[in-house]
């Protein structure tokens, strides 16, 4: 039992070390080092990391590039936001509206009763279920329609992108039902628990980090199963897997739906930590940015994707504060550079150089390596002057 957990969930020694490092950074270093405002910001980035991790599964291992991960991030976020909004719009606090008891943006848009699809979101149980089920069903429909007909590659990317764009237009257009371009704002409490206090923010940050670790472990488990091997085989030679008698499309649908659920968890945690949800986290641009998070971290590395997300977002915040013009150049350069020169991202670099140094330090050979190098240099110099 213990050894299954070690090899399959943690991913053996290397995987365990990576997870430990990530946990150390998330749970100890960040909270000690940063004030609550910055920590909340990191928490926000970590919710994007869910989407990046899901892309590692879907794109890195499944071989299908989804440019619509924002759809699922948004669906999860909106489900959560609808629940919180209903709780925030109780009779007492909306008494001044023409129709009390409905969210304020509905009142502004002359809607006089709560739309039917909002009703079930009074219940927290339903909301949590919806966060898992709605994106999964949505992804299943898209996936079944596309993969069963052997649509893949660039086509799939374009169609997911178009769906992301449609969803954004729809949310913005249906202001009365969705809050429009401002999104769903002024979220206050979760079952009477104020989510805007400092202690709540700490708790949510740790909850978020714990969920992220959990998701990574589940992904490791899936990848270490036979399914994981099949996914890799499919990515590299889909026809061979198909000719061996496997139904390729079902595996793709599964991994796409799993990715959708993971992104949706991130979206729900985003709403809880940031306190609002808006269409600007659904559309084309956020979706493709999630891809760059995964690409920078390494499209084949679950933990790498988290680091990639943190790094890119840190860069974005730092640059857009001081040099807003430079940021787009840098972001564009990042897309081109990662794809052309570092297709395996940070994790690839780590595997190539980092491990060598780590083992070097571990065996205390570093000292002798430096000595050797210095001696060689001296010998070369002597040789050069001797001539």
């Amino acid at each position, binding site marked *: 039992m213990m050894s299954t957990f070690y090899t399959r969930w943690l991913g053996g020694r290397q995987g365990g070390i990576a997870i430990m490092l990530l946990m150390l950074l998330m749970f100890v270093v960040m909270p000690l080092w940063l004030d609550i405002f910055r920590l909340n910001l990191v928490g926000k980035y970590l919710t994007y990391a869910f989407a990046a991790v899901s892309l590692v599964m879907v794109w890195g291992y499944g071989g299908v590039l989804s440019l619509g991960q924002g759809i699922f991030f948004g669906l999860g976020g909106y489900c959560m936001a609808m629940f919180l909004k209903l709780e925030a719009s109780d009779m007492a606090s909306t008494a001044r509206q023409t129709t009390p008891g409905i969210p304020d943006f509905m009142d502004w848009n002359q809607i006089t009763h709560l739309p039917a699809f909002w009703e079930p979101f009074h219940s927290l149980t339903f909301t949590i279920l919806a966060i898992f089920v709605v994106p999964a069903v949505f992804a299943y429909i898209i996936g079944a329609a596309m993969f069963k007909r052997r649509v893949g590659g*660039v*086509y799939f990317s374009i169609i997911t992108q178009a769906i992301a764009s449609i969803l954004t237009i729809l949310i913005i257009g249906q202001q009365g039902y969705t809050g429009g371009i401002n999104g769903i704002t002024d979220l206050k409490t979760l079952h009477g628990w104020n989510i805007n206090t400092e202690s709540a923010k700490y708790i949510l940050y740790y909850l978020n980090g714990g969920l992220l670790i959990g998701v990574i472990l589940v992904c490791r488990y899936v990848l270490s199963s036979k399914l994981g091997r099949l996914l890799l085989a499919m990515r590299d030679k889909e026809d061979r897997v198909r000719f061996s008698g496997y139904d390729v499309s079902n595996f793709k649908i599964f991994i796409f739906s799993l990715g959708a659920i993971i992104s949706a968890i991130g979206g729900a945690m985003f709403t809880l930590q940031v306190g609002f949800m808006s269409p600007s986290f659904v559309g084309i641009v956020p979706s493709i940015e999630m891809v760059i998070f995964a690409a920078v971290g390494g499209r084949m590395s679950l933990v790498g994707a988290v680091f990639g997300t943190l790094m890119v977002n840190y860069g974005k915040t730092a640059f857009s504060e001081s040099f807003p013009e430079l940021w787009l150049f840098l972001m564009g*350069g990042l897309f081109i550079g990662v794809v052309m020169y570092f297709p395996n991202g940070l994790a690839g670099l780590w595997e190539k150089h980092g491990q060598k140094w780590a083992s070097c330090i571990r065996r205390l050979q570093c000292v002798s390596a430096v000595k050797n190098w210095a001696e060689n240099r001296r010998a070369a110099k002597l040789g050069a002057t001797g001539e």
Partner: protein
Amino acid sequence: MFGYSVSDLGSIVVMQGFSGLSLFSVLLLMALGLAIIFGQMGVINMAHGEFMTIGAYTIYVLGKITAEYFPTFLPYYFFFALFAAFALAFLVGYLVEYLMIRHLYKRPLDTLLATWGLSLIMQQIFRTIFGGREVSPNLPDWLMGSWSVTDTIDIPINGMVVMAITFAVTGLVVMFMFRSSWGLKVRATTQNRLMAGAVGINTKKVDRMTFAVGCGIAGVAGAAFTTIASTGPTSGSQYIVDTFLVVVFGGATSILGAIASAFSIAQAQSILTFFLTNAMGKVVTLLVVIVILMLRPEGLFSSKVRK
């Protein structure tokens, strides 16, 4: 129906239909370039919209220069500027293919990401040079105004010019593809790259030319676009998703398919927009397209291509 009389409805259909034709022109010009690039190389150029913007800014700059130094020339400069727009977008496309795209042919998904990065950089370059605000070029007077067919129907002249440009460019592209030796090579490479190479076609050179020509056509699209709307750094990217859908819906490699799908998407969108809201018209159109694509993934006109 909807509280309009029959003759009103007729005028609405004609005028919305005409504004649909302007949208059709822009979509078609964009899609033509994208379709031949995608059809031949399997590469999706996310920066295609920015090549359109290059064309639009070329007109703007040339219009400024003409108004400043050769005011008498102003009524005619537009036609020369069209060629300049093509040439500039062609050149940039040629460079981009040489520096970036050709290294990524074996990885189409990565090309998608790299060209997205390119589009971000290009947008920021436009913003740095021309500022974030939208600009409109000095258009000759004869482009303004409209032609009243009946009391209720007004057809804008610039719309007609855009359509004329579109027809001319489409005609030229069809002629090049089916009547020139370059077109022959392109079609051969599209159908079977290995065999084309084996019979002595330099497929790399053909790729580079095709990519550049596709970008050049996008430049012309941008030039035509300036006559109906103003240009900002992100003007091109607003059309990119629609254009992709046009290409995929049309069947990716077929020029006829691109024309048919651009026409149906543009018309549906512009007529629905009148009866629903702007956003809903677009949502309904795109949703229908996606549902059709899910039922028929190869698009309207699929061609038999050896993968």
